[in-house]
């Protein structure tokens, strides 16, 4: 099993470490040609969505990436990755990848002083740690989207077929629950 981790900016190494703990091989995707390497899944990590999208656009990676996701490649977006995949962003004029039928809200909990940790239920599993860093949340999950976690009344994890997103950062914890869920999607 091999997973490509988008490594344009942000906390991509943390995802690689988690996946490697689960016996999954990973590699970094920094440019257009690395998108052509064979992979069983892809991770869009946390970081700044504006930064990542500008580089994706400049390096002509938007269309090939969209094609791969529409083609059924298992895709896991955390935080900024969630924003990249959302069809709509409520408080931001998004022209990102827009492949997933969710409406997200950017910096939904405010600035850094609004960042927080919580423990809750993910896909029926109790005691999953959630780390929210200037995080978004999902305002609305459209038809065909399965809600996997809710914190303080807000949707913070969801899946639509091959696309799986979390508003929080499982890669910053020692808990492998969420990454295991993604590895199970790899088939």
């Amino acid at each position, binding site marked *: 099993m091999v997973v490509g981790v988008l490594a344009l*900016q942000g906390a991509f190494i943390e995802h690689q470490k988690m996946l490697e703990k689960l016996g999954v091989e990973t590699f970094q995707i920094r440019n257009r040609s690395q998108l052509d390497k064979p992979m069983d899944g892809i991770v869009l990590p946390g970081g700044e969505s504006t930064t990542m999208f500008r580089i994706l656009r400049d390096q002509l990676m938007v269309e090939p990436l969209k094609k791969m996701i529409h083609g059924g490649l298992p895709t896991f977006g955390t935080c900024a990755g969630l924003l990249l995949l959302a069809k709509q962003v409520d408080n931001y004029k998004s022209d990102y990848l827009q492949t997933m039928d969710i409406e997200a809200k950017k910096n939904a909990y405010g600035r850094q*002083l609004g*960042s927080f940790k919580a423990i809750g239920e993910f896909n029926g599993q109790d005691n999953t740690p959630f780390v929210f*860093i200037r995080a978004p949340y999902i305002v609305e999950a459209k038809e065909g989207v399965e809600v996997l976690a809710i914190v303080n009344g807000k949707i913070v994890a969801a899946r639509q077929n091959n696309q799986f997103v979390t508003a929080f950062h499982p890669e910053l914890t020692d808990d492998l629950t969420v990454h295991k869920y993604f590895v199970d999607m790899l088939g």
Partner: protein
Amino acid sequence: MNKRYELNKELAQMLKGGVIMDVTNAEQAKIAEEAGACAVMALERIPADIRAAGGVSRMSDPKLIKEIQEAVTIPVMAKVRIGHFVEAQILEALEIDYIDESEVLSPADDTYHIDKTKFKAPFVCGAKNLGEALRRIEEGASMIRTKGEPGTGDVIQAVIHMRKIQSEMRRMTSLSEDELYNEAKNLQVSYDLLKYVKENGKLPVVNFAAGGVATPADAALMMQLGAEGVFVGSGIFKSGDPAKRANAIVKAVTNFDDPKVLAELSEDLGEAMVGINENEIDLLMSNRGQ
């Protein structure tokens, strides 16, 4: 370790592989964001102008900081004088995303740095060697950057500081436990922090490069020397074509180990900031706050 400090270290992790740019108004902040900056540093004058103007240099006007916060969705940082904890209280009240306790401004205290553990807002501090870095972390900094020599457009000091920190860390990994006690004494740092460095070969927080970065090649050089991201101060808005240069530096950090891409990025950027070299300046800012 308290949750707030962990969250603050984790925000710095999200900035990794990115470029943090100095901006002096909302318009520049938007240019920086559009070019791909992962955060902006709001200040009234960029370091090159602070250097030229002389006099006492202080925290920026809150009005300016608020305008910049309104203009962009990426994190906004701002600087306070070394030891000036009231300026830091004010920035925290503005809900700033990161406070830079910075040698670029005139120090307010020649002995004591801010006790950063008293704050909820995160702090980044400059360091030119491992001892300084660990002392700042002990005081509560959740991110470190090299000091470099700000406002010069000359990368030599940032290189010296980054090399020094990296080589000192490498040396720590080879020390025995008993030698480590003595080294903690020499460096005036706690044994526990030094033990972390020995065991992990790195700082317990994210470490960026800063000071004198002016070109995509400078940024990539700092990344190859072990920086986890780059601050660019005067280098962008003192150059001929700020938007283009800013964007090229962003992509140079992503592609730091790909010389072919770096060659393309370095092409036709217009004039770089003229710069002054460290022998031509009277004031070495990096000596402020040991």
